[in-house]
């Protein structure tokens, strides 16, 4: 069975004020981490019943570009010994700082064929508002280095709706993006997560997000500009040139199996969701004692799995196919949710086309309201 493999790299130079992904601000000890991750993979191998073929690999974080190309080389070797590991898409998340043509060429050489750059903003004002370390110059340099090192599939991460951002700021940013012309874009609305410094600042009233109406206009502006430039808006926050959707992330949104390695990673296998506690010390300790570092978080009943597949699937703008859902789960979407759908279709948030159900553009922006019906 085809599956996706994720590696969480829990290291950062410094935490960003809005980020709630797990990372520690320390210099990674590559040897120790490599040994632990491979040991974890071995334990999974003995625990998984079916045969998994990993068709995508994604190093996310944290800052995966803090680990050297040779770390990944050895990791891939190890994974190849354990699993059917012949990924066609290998993504490395990277921050512009610390990148150069030499190291990018080396990453390319060990097998990475997709680079996801954490730009976050194309203005100094935005970078400051988001508390990012890199400069704009560094960002543009990283992009040209990536191109010259042979990365033909480039994705950039951007954030909109940061404190102080105006619609004009965003439009200027979009012009800049079109000049960079990445194959793929993730454009996230800034979401204050509990426990982050940003959340505290907002709660204390020391900073403020743009008005809701402005944020909605930003959403629509991004959708329109990128669509006009030939990008396909394929997920709530994701855009791609034809043929460049992120295959790895589709495993999440289509509720397909994935294995996550490293502290803070999640796995979804045979309707069971596992999570490795986001704590590097505990992770090392568990593995040094040959213990399974992940905990079983949830076992979904067939109906829960079906509902979840709808909720996740609706994140994709192509929506879900009732036929496919029926084949996978044995439940008829249109029959089980007939009452809910009657109400929902009237709201115009959702569109039914043949056997497919998908969000309208307004439905995307109000997607939680839709998902509530399928919980």
């Amino acid at each position, binding site marked *: 069975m085809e599956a996706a493999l*994720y590696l*969480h790299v829990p290291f950062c130079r410094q935490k960003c004020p809005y980020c709630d*992904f797990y990372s520690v601000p320390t210099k990674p000890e590559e040897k120790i981490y490599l040994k632990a991750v491979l040991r974890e993979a071995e334990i999974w191998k003995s625990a998984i019943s079916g045969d998994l073929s990993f068709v995508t690999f994604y190093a*996310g974080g944290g800052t995966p570009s803090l680990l050297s190309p040779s770390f990944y080389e050895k990791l891939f070797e190890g994974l190849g010994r354990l699993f059917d590991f012949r990924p066609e898409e290998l993504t490395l998340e990277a921050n512009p700082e610390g990148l150069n043509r030499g190291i990018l060429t080396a990453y390319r050489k060990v097998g990475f064929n997709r680079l996801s750059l954490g730009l976050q903003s194309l203005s100094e004002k935005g970078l400051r508002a988001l508390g990012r370390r890199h400069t704009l110059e560094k960002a543009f340099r990283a992009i040209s280095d990536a191109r010259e090192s042979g990365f033909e599939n480039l994705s950039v991460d951007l954030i909109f709706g940061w404190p102080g951002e105006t619609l004009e700021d965003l439009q200027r940013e979009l012009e800049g993006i079109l000049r960079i012309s990445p194959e793929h874009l993730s454009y*996230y*609305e*800034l*979401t204050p997560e509990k426990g982050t410094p940003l959340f505290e600042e907002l709660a204390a009233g020391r900073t403020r997000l743009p008005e*809701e*109406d402005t*944020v*909605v206009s930003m*959403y629509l502006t991004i959708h329109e500009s990128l669509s006009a430039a030939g990008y396909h808006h394929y997920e*709530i*926050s994701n855009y791609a040139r034809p043929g460049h959707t992120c295959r790895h*992330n589709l*495993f*999440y*949104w289509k509720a397909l199996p*994935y294995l*996550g390695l490293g502290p*803070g*990673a*999640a*796995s*979804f296998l045979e309707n069971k*969701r596992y*999570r490795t506690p986001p704590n590097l010390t505990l992770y090392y300790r568990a593995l040094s004692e040959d213990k399974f570092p992940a905990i079983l*978080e*949830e076992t979904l009943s067939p109906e829960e799995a079906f509902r*979840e597949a709808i*909720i*996740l699937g609706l*994140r994709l703008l192509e929506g879900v196919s009732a036929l496919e859902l029926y084949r996978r789960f044995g439940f008829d979407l249109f029959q089980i949710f007939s009452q809910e759908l009657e109400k929902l279709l009237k*709201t115009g*948030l959702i569109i039914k086309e043949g056997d497919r159900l998908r969000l309208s553009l307004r439905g*995307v*922006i*109000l*997607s*939680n*309201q839709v*998902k*509530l019906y399928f*919980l």
Partner: protein
Amino acid sequence: MKIFPQERIRNFSIIAHVDHGKSTLADRLLEATGAVSEREMRDQFLDRLDLERERGITIKAQAVRLYYKAQDGEVYQLNLIDTPGHVDFSYEVSRALSACEGALLVVDASQGVEAQTLANVYLALENDLEIIPVLNKIDLPQADPERVKREIEEIIGLPTDEAILASAKHGIGTKEILEAIVKKIPPPQGDRKKPLRALIFDSWYDPYLGVVVLIRVVEGKIYPGQRIRLVSTGKVYEVTKVGVFAPNPSSVDALYAGEVGFFAASIKEVRETRIGDTVTEAEAEVEPLPGFREVKPMVFAGIFPVVSDDYEDLREAIEKLWLNDPAFSYEPETSAALGHGFRCGFQGLLHMEIVQERLEREFGLNLITTAPSVKYRVELTDGQEMEIENPAQWPDPARIKVVKEPYIRAEIYTPKDYIGPILRLCEEKRGLQKEIRYLTPERVLIIYELPFAEVVLDFFDRLKSVSRGYASMDYQLLEYRPGDLVKMDILINKQPVDALSVIVHRDKAYYRGRELVAKLKEVIPRQLFEVVIQAAIGSKIIARERIPPLRKDVLAKCYGGDVTRKKKLLEKQKEGKKRMKALGQVEIPQEAFLAVLKI
């Protein structure tokens, strides 16, 4: 087991204002007599309902038996009957007091005499109880026992030369209190050889014992195997178990005249036992004991299930709860907006809150309570007179000749520093000043006549806030007086919502209308479409607010590691939605129906 001699029995209760330390003192008495070991001890031991512990108040009366070896060397049986302090629960108090010969009057040594202290003391005096004053919290730096003693003498008219100085928190004075109970409170009277007569003062359903009946035996005895009869229904049962709370339930061979305890018989339903009824022997001919005076509800509100399908469950729950708390009344009501429910009458606002919370918690229901209303009397032009306790029944204004509303006499006790703001509050609430009297150089009694409708809304909260919690109030119903009252309707997207209508004084209609629609705007969440809220008198719109449509509700990110957490967020959102009532397309949260209380 040896029969306990009547002359060594003492039945007493503790009366106190809320927060003056009644439950803490009860805890100390339990400890000092060894009824509860240190290990078993927990705060507010006698308060059984979760609600009582959380709120730190007593709602239901309790009876517990203690054994105390006094200084004279004899062992005494003490039956402590714990009672609520709040005026809304005076029905419970009067029930409990009728089972006693004496009472401890607990007064906070810094706060002094409060309105409810008085109300409960008067109840005790009506029952001819021996009253032992206890000045509690003497350990506090602001304690002023001499001043409070003077207050007790001047305001209540009780001698205080033998008042006990205590700190229940630190166990000071506990011994003295126990001795005073033994020495001052008379033993119960009542011939143990006569046929059984016992007064029912509470009953409830217990999953292990069935219906449990709490009684005070006045004459004769009750024992397992005995055939008994409830006088009001004439039904005969066989007693299966007789016991006392010590404080955990334990069996005894019999209960004799003068004792307090419980029995279980083959009684199937709580409704068969009426509180205030007399228990006697199956074949005996006896005079029934005087029961309890009936209480009339003062405040009325609708209670509806959020989901209409729960109506039957609500009916069952209300019937069951009523048997445990007959101080509220209920009758079926139908609302165009809320469907089938009940119009309930309560002793006051706190009582209303407690009934709603008990219905929700003890029966797992999800309920909407509408704004409380008093009972109005409306004279119509055709000479007819109507009693109206529900704004939905308000007649066409053209047919109204005169509307009368109930007035109360409010007695407010306060330190003199707060006279100004309290007078302003009373004037704002359309009050008529009757008297301002200095009870002591520091404490003042303010007497006002107020429209009761103004008091049920938020008077208590306001009084507490303008006096920083120091003022207290008690009230009695006076009479009905004419008032210029109108019905104010609330329209949501042009549709009148009957459950939101309120009766207001014409002079305050505009102000209340504006405040109410503003409050509704705050509590009603944004919907997928615009919502317009209007307040109207007849066809005239007096206030308007607009809730703009929800524009954005989206999770920007969701990858593998986020799924569970993001799903939980959605589940929480859905839970909130479930608790809302759908009126047409608009979803309205429960608190909207009580918004009028918050303005």
